[in-house]
């Protein structure tokens, strides 16, 4: 199982608070990796390290290595826009950009230099189809994205993220604000997408992890407690704390 992302001794401090403690982690290629754990255990912080959004926060200190392929993303010579382009991010609540549906998808390719109108049209159509939202919006591509339902917005955000041709898709509890039908849509999409992408999904729904994950990482209070195949971590956990979490004794 080739490791796509390899984290070595990653520590994150918010001022005095030690938010991530010595994380060592391997995330496999073309699989869905779910990061589970109770609120405040550092799942989101870990995710924000991947695309270095963590840099935009105050008073943060990061040390350790986060290797994507053979590149340590915390190296000084890493071009941050290029790094972020490699990752699609789905946040808890969808944040479409304040522009039309069409422009939302075209935004990424355009800032990365695509000018040809026809090419942009093709891309927009392709990625809207890829995110299974094309049929719902094809007649109103110029309508503001804010008019879509929240489930549609999340799929639009997925299309927008895919349009920059990432290798990795990051999801920060991407279905927590959605209704059950939209969540199911998104989950099904994820299962298809793992053919082409590496997915890292933060969730605190245990059931969701069971439905999606190939590989599970359990975190607790800033520590990585256990990692392994979904089957192993969710069904036969080795660590005491994982057992307690899986059985619902701690949450």
């Amino acid at each position, binding site marked *: 199982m080739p490791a796509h992302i390899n984290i070595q001794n990653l520590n994150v401090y918010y001022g005095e608070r030690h938010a991530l403690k010595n994380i060592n982690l391997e995330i496999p290629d073309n699989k869905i990796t779910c990061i589970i754990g109770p609120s405040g255990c550092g799942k989101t912080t870990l995710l924000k390290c991947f695309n270095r*959004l963590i840099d*935009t926060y105050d008073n943060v200190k990061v040390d350790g290595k986060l290797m994507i392929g053979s590149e340590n993303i915390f190296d000084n010579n890493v071009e941050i826009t290029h790094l972020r382009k490699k990752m699609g991010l789905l946040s808890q609540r969808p944040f479409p950009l*304040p522009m039309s549906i069409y422009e939302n998808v075209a935004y*990424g390719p355009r800032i990365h230099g695509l000018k040809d109108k026809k090419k942009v049209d093709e891309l927009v159509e392709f990625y809207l189809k890829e995110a299974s939202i094309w049929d719902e919006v094809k007649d109103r591509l110029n309508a*503001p*994205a*804010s008019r879509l339902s929240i489930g549609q917005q999340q799929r639009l955000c997925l299309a927008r*993220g895919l349009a*920059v041709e990432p290798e990795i898709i990051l999801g920060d509890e991407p279905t927590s604000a959605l209704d059950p039908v939209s969540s199911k849509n998104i989950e099904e999409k994820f299962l298809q997408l793992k053919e082409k992408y590496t997915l890292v999904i933060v969730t605190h729904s245990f059931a969701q992890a069971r439905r999606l994950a190939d590989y599970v990482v359990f975190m607790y209070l800033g520590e990585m407690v256990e990692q392994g195949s979904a089957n192993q971590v969710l069904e036969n956990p080795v660590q005491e704390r994982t057992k307690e979490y899986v059985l619902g004794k701690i949450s």
Partner: protein
Amino acid sequence: MGKEGGVLNAILGSLYLSIGATVLSMLMSLPIVLYINLYLKPDSKFAATIRLAMDLMWGVPSIVYGAFGFTVMVLIGLKTSMLAGMITLAIMILPIIIRAMDEIVRTVPLGLIEASLSLGATRWETAFKVVVKQTMPGIVTAMLLGFGRAIGDAASVIFTAGYTDKIPYSIMKQVGTLPLSIFFQLGSPIPEVQNRAYAAAVILTIIILIVSILSRLYYRKFARNRIL
């Protein structure tokens, strides 16, 4: 004497001055606001200092701006002119525009900025393509607030833009303004001239009314794409 004529000189003068001042002020304030909100960290001392300074400048009476502008003009050898008036007004409304826009830009959800950054956009692109679009209604409101203040102000233009009965024809020449035409004409013993002052006051009010109505009408259009 002075029984003929109107206040076209002052109407045009006021419009030119205020539009020029608003444009100048926007050119300075938009980058400042985007800079303190997107480039500086939220607890930045520098940003806090700028905000405090703007609050102080907001409270400074406009005659002080006039006197300051006049002093600088003397130093650099600029005569009373439309240009000098524009610059003075621009500085006077700068804190108003900055603070009004700042309040709006601060309400932009962090998730929206992160969404743009995570697509590989630079902060510059995020600022101008996402934040500006999101806050367009607020930016326009801030602009109109500044414009309203600029067009109604007499004290800061009395030394810097001067006054003339001529229709404005050059940016380097003195220019008449509505507030000053009220001020000068109301003091005249001739009833016709006094009436002209009242007319000028009505016109000034109407201009501000029109601007407010237009902004209300266009608010929806500007707010169309806004993400709540």
